[in-house]
Every structure is written in C-alpha cells, then in structure tokens.
C-alpha cells in the first residue's frame, strides 16, 4: 500500500484502490470501544460511564459534549495516555484487533503514530518553539519510518504540501511563532499522519480557529479520509462540526452517552433533551433559519 501522504498528493481520479480498502463485505474494525468506563482512582469516582463504538477504515465517529462530559478522557483512554490516577475500570478498547489492556510499553510506542494518532486543541503547545517545524516532522519520520535525515526532510515537505500549506519549503524552515494557528494545526496534522496511521483522533482540533480556517481544517480531514481511508474520531463541543464530518454521533453529558446513532438519524429525530437543546441552539441562533429560506426561495 502506498504511504498515506503519497495517496493524498495523487489526484482523486487516479486512485484505483478504494479508500475503504479490505475485501468486499464488512471491513475489520480499526478501533473498537466496548462499554469503556473510566475511574479517577484518587477520588474513587467513575467519570465515564460506558462508551461503545466501532470504527472501520474510512469512517468517522463524532463525540459531542460540553467540557467535563468525558469526551477527552475517552480519547485519551483509546490513546493509552490517561492522566495519572485515571484508569479504565471497565470495558475494553481494541486497536486493530488487539486489546490495549495487554499491550506492553514497547508495543504502545510502536502503535502510536503508526496506527493511532491524534491532534488536539492548542497546536502550539505540542511543538517545540526553538526547533524549526520541518525538523520536528522529520524527526517523527526518522524514528517511526527509519528514514535517513535527508530523505525524512524531503518527506516532511511532501507532508506539509499534502496538508495544503501553500509554501511548504518556507514553512519547513520556520519556527512556531512565525505561523498562525491554522498553519500550526496543519503542521500538527502533517506530523500526526507522518507515520501513516489508520486512525486519527481530532480532539477540539478546530475550536480555537477562525470559522473560515476551521472549515479549511475540516475539509482537509474529509479529504484525508476520502483519499486514504483514514478513520476519524472527531471530538467537539459543536454538534455542527461533528455533523459535517461524521457518519455516527455520540452525544455525551456528565460521562454518559445520552444519545448515539447515525448522524442523520440523531439530527432529524433527536431523542434526548440535551441533543434537542444542541440542535435548538443552532436553529435559533445559527445560520440555519436564513439558509433554509434560501432553499425555499
């Protein structure tokens, strides 16, 4: 299989293998959570009360909820990076078929980046301010793919191009303070996909960005998914962000999944009051009512 970034640079008409990959029929899940519960050992409280979903290649699952609803903890559990004192107290997580409970630290290291990867809200805090961004991406490629320095640098530029940065060579030689938030998030996405992962978790990855830049990043994620079969977990407080990108939505509140189903189903027939509140907010205050009149006209 050609590496993910190469596929991204190929015009979509020329991709012969379908992004969804695998033999006909049901593709094997790349990530599955079964009734995952997360507990704070220090406080003895359960904070996430059972999250289940299955992600197959090329699919996108969205998790919506306010801060403190447990959506980020769920992602961190899947990445094996729960904060100190927190543990998975029930259920199971399987990445590419293997249960993460049995993983050794070495196996985790091999898995992160190469199979499962993530981008978060504040891209600047995940990059070293005193190292050029190109070198930081190249490092991922050298460590994860075993490429030589020069080759890794060339690949870093390719990746920056793949995430639609206009002047990839220039960006490569720049420091974080020289780049805008939207550019930094692209750099982070480039680093996240450098080792050709199969799953990308985007946790509030566009929250701090201007609306137009947010749309650029969401379009990029949609593009990655279509062209490379990358599976996405999109976490946001904004139902509309998730609705744009995902096939399935989980609505979380206070650690509980209050609603879950295909996106269209959840949007058109919300059952839980909280989901209805999220939808009402958009309908009352968003652009919906103006755009609806446009369609009617």
């Amino acid at each position: 299989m050609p590496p993910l970034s190469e596929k991204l640079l190929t015009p979509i008409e020329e991709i012969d293998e379908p992004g969804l990959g695998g033999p006909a029929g049901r593709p094997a899940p790349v990530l599955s959570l079964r009734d995952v519960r997360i507990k704070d050992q220090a406080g003895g409280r359960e904070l996430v009360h059972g999250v289940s979903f299955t992600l197959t290649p090329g699919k996108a699952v969205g998790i919506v909820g306010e801060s403190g609803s447990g959506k980020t903890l769920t992602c961190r559990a899947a990445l094996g990076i729960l904060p100190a004192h927190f543990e998975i107290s029930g259920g199971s997580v399987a990445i590419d078929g293997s249960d993460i409970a049995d993983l050794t630290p070495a196996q985790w290291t091999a898995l992160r980046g190469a199979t499962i990867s993530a981008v978060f809200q504040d891209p600047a805090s995940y990059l070293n301010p005193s190292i050029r961004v190109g070198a930081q991406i190249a490092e991922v490629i050298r460590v994860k793919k075993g490429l030589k320095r020069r080759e890794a640098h060339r690949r870093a530029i390719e990746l920056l191009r793949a995430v639609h940065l206009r002047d990839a060579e220039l960006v490569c030689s720049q420091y974080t303070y020289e780049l805008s938030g939207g550019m930094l998030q692209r750099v982070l996405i480039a680093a996240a996909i450098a080792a050709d992962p199969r799953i990308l978790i985007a946790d509030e990855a566009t929250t701090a960005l201007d609306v137009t830049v947010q749309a650029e990043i969401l379009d990029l994620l949609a593009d990655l998914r279509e062209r490379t079969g990358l599976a996405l977990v999109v976490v946001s407080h904004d139902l509309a962000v998730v609705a744009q990108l995902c096939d399935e939505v989980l609505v979380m509140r206070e650690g509980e999944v209050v609603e879950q189903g295909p996106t269209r189903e959840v949007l058109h027939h919300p059952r839980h009051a909280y989901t209805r509140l999220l939808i009402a907010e958009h309908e009352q205050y968003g652009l919906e009512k103006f755009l609806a009149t446009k369609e009617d006209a």
Partner: protein
Amino acid sequence: MSTRPVLEVKDLDVHYGLRRRRRRALHEVSLSVAPGETVGIIGETGSGKSTLARAALGLVPVSAGSIVVDGEDVSSYGHRQWRTLRRRGVIQYVFQDPLRSLDPDLTIEASLAEPLLIQGMSRGEAAVRVRSFLSRVRLSEDLLDRSPAELSGGQRQRVAVARALVTEPRLIILDEPVSALDSANRVQILQILKELRGDGVALVFISHDLGSVAGVADRIAVLYQGELVEAGAARDVISRPRHPYTRLLVSSAPTLHSAPAERAEREALRALLHA
C-alpha cells in the same frame, strides 16, 4: 426618542506603529448605528474588528475620518474629554474575557455599583438599581457578595453585561462576548442580548463567528483586511452574500445540514481570495 445615530463612524483610518513599521489597521470604514439597533461586526483575526471597537471607545488614536458618539464628535477628544464621556455612562462595553474586565478584588455588588457611584448616585440608590438589573441577566442576589473568581465563566459574563447595563447607556459595544463560553451559556447571553432590543439601547456585537451574531443582529457589517467589504440586513448578508470573503464565511459556518458540494465552492473562494 431622537433618531440621530448613537454611533456614526465616517471614513475611519487607524494606523499602528511608527514610521517604517506603520501599518494600516482600518481603512475608510463607515458605519452608522441607530438607537436601539443591534449591529453585528464580523471579521477574522486581524481584520480590524477589535480596533474598530477600541477606536469607538477612545482607546486608539484616529488617523483620519471621524467618530460621532451620541451627537458628539469624539475623533479629536483628549484623555480628559474621553473620561468625562465614559463617566456619563452613555457608551459601555463588554469584552471576551470577563475575568479580566472585572476587578478581582471587588465583590460582584461593588463591581456593579461602581459605575453608578462614579456618576454620583448614593450607595442606597445604587444598591436598588443593581438589584433591579440582576433578573434581566438571570443572576440571583446570592452572588452579590462573591468575588469574580467564585463565579463560572457564564455567570461572570452575565455580570459584565449587567455592569454595562446599569448606567442605562445608549450604546454597548460587545467584543466577542460569547466566544469563550460553552453552548448553554452562549445561548443564555444571546437570549439576554435579544431581550435588550426593546429597551432602546443599541448594541454593536463584534465576533469572528457569523453563527453567534446571526440570530441577534438586525444588520451585519463584514470587515476584511481592515476594510468594510459588505453591510446590510442580517438576512440579506447571510442568504445573499456578495463579497467573496462573506461568501466564504457563510459557506464555512458549520451548519447541521450542509451539502458536500459546498467544499468545492469553498475551495474556489479561497483561491479567489488568495489570488
């Protein structure tokens, strides 16, 4: 009530920096706000929207053009004149981060009463007035003896709105008032702002997010790279945007039911704007 605009900005230019580092932040911006009207100002980071707010509050010097607040040309006002104007409480403001706009050492009651005491109102009268405004912003009296740090972000922003309201101003400028809030609190603030429309106070609501302004504003003005590229009734600007940037804004706003075809449209608009 007179129909004279409460805020009239004409051909406003604002520059930052000196000599070779001098940079234009606003260019020939004209905008008029009628009494009781809610005007939304939309723009991305660096578009000059906060500069416009700051100019209208006398916080940045005007390079060219004029600003008239409630009939007074304030473009050439000095510190002293601005202070007198602000003390009259005709124009008030609410910023994004209420923790920074409220004095951390004052109780909520003291913060709310302060603008009234400055105007010369007695403590007793001020206390009555403060209480009469609490229900408008859905805050309970129990919060009055707390400090800002003891309140949630949403409560603090409602305090900031109440503080702007107590002097019964003619104009409130709100700079990203809901950007730091979660959805429940955002809805609550938007609802409060909507209810203010009947009171004759004009609002200038500045935001990067068309979505949060759409349901509240009567008119919308779009700033792009320091220039006002489009203005009109909210409905028209959103359903029939003319400028490429406005079109990109509308097609970028995440909606619950969007067509995938919009992606190609956004791509074309981005290419057009970057050309």
